[in-house]
């Protein structure tokens, strides 16, 4: 397994070439994708350095138009040649805890090959977890950066539940849902993967530097861009295809009408991966995108981790095929070891343990939706002081929670 490789070991010629290509070409460049389909990376690199395209072959430069496109691409790549680090530096990046994974490596996730010519040339990894194994049972979870507390809560809960059952959560490391998903998985001491649109050593957003460090410690921070590369607007959209490809399925937790999460959803749909969405309040602009993909794209409506696992289970790699040594790969999070006997109990007292007032207030809450404080008080036939005290107690016990319209029963 490559994760055990000594840092001093030199990268093979092909890996070096792929590392160099990540510096020279933007990921997702169709011209380079087409070239790599017919030539080896070392040949491509040599051709770029020599400013001479490799001999024409099928699918490459056989028409004048595509020949011209290739010439233009060559100019693009050559322009970055001066910025290419020295070979030693390329090879020695592993000193910083950063390593390279290339197609054909033991830890290269086969799921990425589904991207065809848009497959990443190579991936830069930060963290010690095995990428291929982590992606064997994985869920991509993305959503709005401007998440509501509802979205953040749901994303965190679902990610933690998935983590406890041995699933990897893949997300983009952005604010909002992405961060909630990562944190949920981290809280369950499970593996989580952050796919960045910049170098893995470049914390973007800067406020997440600590989060990325925690993810690298317990899972992986990965990127198609070489270390030190800054993020750019278009790079996020290119990056999204990798998020979609790495997960066995994609869950959108909260997405506005124009959210970037919908771009990830589109990639997942294109790849034929199960697409899922967590519904939100129909009045919430933050969930409008989720509702649209349920309606228009046939996404499955999921509300908890069990729903997701049920949908994905036939698609995952059987456990027998997965490498052994679970505990080493998923620190403290071997599936089955930490799974709760009853995930719904959570140490909450039962309704029978409640005092009469609290029980009455709990009964007064509507079964669906929420109700205002006064409405609950009238319904329960108690005064305001009592209702406030009982609501506090019930919320503390986890029976109810705050919502748009006041208080509502907590889904258990």
């Amino acid at each position, binding site marked *: 397994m490559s994760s055990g490789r000594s840092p001093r070991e030199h990268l093979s010629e092909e890996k070096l070439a792929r590392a160099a290509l990540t510096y020279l070409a933007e990921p997702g460049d169709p011209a380079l994708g087409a070239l790599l389909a017919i030539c080896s990376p070392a040949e491509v690199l040599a051709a770029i350095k020599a400013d001479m395209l490799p001999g024409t072959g099928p699918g490459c430069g056989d028409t004048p138009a595509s020949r011209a496109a290739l010439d233009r691409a060559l100019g693009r790549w050559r322009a970055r040649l001066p910025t290419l680090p020295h070979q030693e530096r390329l090879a020695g990046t592993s000193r910083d805890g950063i390593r390279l994974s290339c197609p054909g490596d033991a830890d290269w996730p086969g799921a990425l090959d589904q991207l065809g010519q848009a497959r990443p040339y190579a991936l830069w990894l930060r963290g010690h977890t095995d990428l291929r194994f982590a992606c064997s049972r994985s869920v991509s979870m993305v959503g709005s950066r*401007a998440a509501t507390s509802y979205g953040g809560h749901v994303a965190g809960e679902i990610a933690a539940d998935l983590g406890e059952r041995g699933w990897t959560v893949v997300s983009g490391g952005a604010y909002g849902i992405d961060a909630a998903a990562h944190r949920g998985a981290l809280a369950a001491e499970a593996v989580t993967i952050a796919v960045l649109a910049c170098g893995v050593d470049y914390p973007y957003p800067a406020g997440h530097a600590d989060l990325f460090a925690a993810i690298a410690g317990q899972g992986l921070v990965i990127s198609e861009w070489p270390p030190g590369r800054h993020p750019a607007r278009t790079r996020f959209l290119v990056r999204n295809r990798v998020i979609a490809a790495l997960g066995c399925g994609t869950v959108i937790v909260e997405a506005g009408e124009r959210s970037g999460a919908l771009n990830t959803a589109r990639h997942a749909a294109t790849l034929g991966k199960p697409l899922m969405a967590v519904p939100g309040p129909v009045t919430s602009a933050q969930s409008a995108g989720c509702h649209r993909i349920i309606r228009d794209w046939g996404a499955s409506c999921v509300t908890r981790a069990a729903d997701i696992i049920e949908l994905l289970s036939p698609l995952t790699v059987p456990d027998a095929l997965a490498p052994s040594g679970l505990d080493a790969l998923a620190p403290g999070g071997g599936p089955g070891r930490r799974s709760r006997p009853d995930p719904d109990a959570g140490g909450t007292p039962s309704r029978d343990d409640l005092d009469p007032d609290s029980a009455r207030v709990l009964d007064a809450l509507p079964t669906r939706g929420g109700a205002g*404080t*006064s409405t609950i008080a*009238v319904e329960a036939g108690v005064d305001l002081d009592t209702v406030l005290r009982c609501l*506090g107690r019930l*919320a*503390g016990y986890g029976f109810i929670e*705050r919502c748009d319209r006041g208080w509502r029963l907590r889904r258990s």
Partner: protein
Amino acid sequence: MPLARTYSVALIGVTGHVVEIEADIANGLPAVIVVGLPDTALREARDRIRAAITNSGEEWPQRKITVGLSPASLPKRGSWFDLAIAIGILAAAGKVPRAAAAGVMFFGELGLDGRLRPVCGVLPAVARAAEKGFGKVMVAEQNAAEAALVPGVRVIAVGSLTGAADWLRGLPGPDGQPAAVEYQGGQDLPGRPGRDGKLASGGGAQAAGPGGAMAPDLAELLGQSMARRAAEVCAAGGHHLSLLGPPGAGKTMLAERIPTILPRLDRAAAFEVTAVHSVAGTLPAQVPLLEDPPFLAPHHTATKAAIVGGGSGVIRPGSASLAHRGVLFLDEAPEFARDVLDALRQPLEAGEVVVARSGITTRFPARFTLVLASNPCPCARVAGPSEGCSCSPATRRRYLGRISGPLLDRVDVKIELEPVSRKELLSDRTFSESSLTVARRVAQARQRAAHRLQGTPWRLNGEVPGSALRRTWPPAPGSLTVLERSLDRGLITARGVVKIVRVAWTLADLAGRPRPTRDDCDAALGLWLGVRR
């Protein structure tokens, strides 16, 4: 010996310092020299005083006049030594009896025609004079009511320099009337309305108009029972309050009604508040003593100096000090400049503002209840998906992020107001209470808290630091079970527990219980969880 002494008071902030004014007339070319750290306005006094003396029909001594203000190290500012200097010169020239002039404190600005004009800050100055044993003060007629608030001081109200000189000479005025009107401080207060004045007024410039038939009442805030309860808790415990909600939910309405449930100020507090407003010059002419807690709502374009006080030359109190013992309401709080908001951290901590300038350091009291109101987003349209908010995620994050964590950390009660549904409106009719009812509970709760906190520097629960709360006033045993469970579940943080317990103390005070029980802690938790997070 042509030397005379008079006395006045220089104000640094709201603290008075007695200033001795010596006027010496010597042989030499006719000139006036003012020594002793005067500022520009005080230097100009030479010309004002000369015109005033001449126009009052007195004789200007055509010799060299030296006016010394001591202690010389104390910066002296403004125009209010005019009267003291003018009387000093007249006394030195032998026009008024020197002994009489030395026995009175003088405060007042002179017009060129010799009229005496009112000045700001008379109350703290007279209070200082009384402390230092001066039994008589002479002020302009317009300042008489304010000066007469100080017990044990004889206030001589005069309208002009002539009146002042005549009174000192023991002569009647030109038209046979007494030269001055005298009041005994603390007893007969001229032009003072009865105590049944408006309830909700604030003294400041930003206060609501005079209380008419439609005085605001807490009962009008229908459908927001949690918010009403939060306001009551804040009024009773002096807790700072943060209101979050879309426009139209009633944030401003609630904040404006908090003064209606606050008790009137006691004598000592009223003096402190009046002193600050007197220095700021925002004291209403007819109301010399502010007995209602002030309510200040500065606009969000306010500068740091406007909020915490400052200014070059004369340092004036800002809104934070004008709201002393009252409410400082920051509507659209995220719109305030970040440094303005952060400047409030120190007064929130210390209960006073310290304005340091190169010349002098000034302290103003600033123990106020902070009320913040914010929209969840700068465009304030989050209602539906169709006309929904178009702000970028970063914009929204940044918007609420403008209120810094350390500031929010000092806020004990946070409430989210939602648009009210019809059902909630109907249900809430049963529970809405008038301001008068709530104010009575608040007053009793404050008394209980004050009784408990006797012998400590604090008067209200909101002022008690967490460490003292834990050590000296823990809630009843066994009342924290639900809190502990919430802590385990990650609903609240350890820091949140301190705030919840503090609010529980206020709830216990409101309910008349000796210490918070489990019910109070749970109710406080309910209020705390009233914000989605």
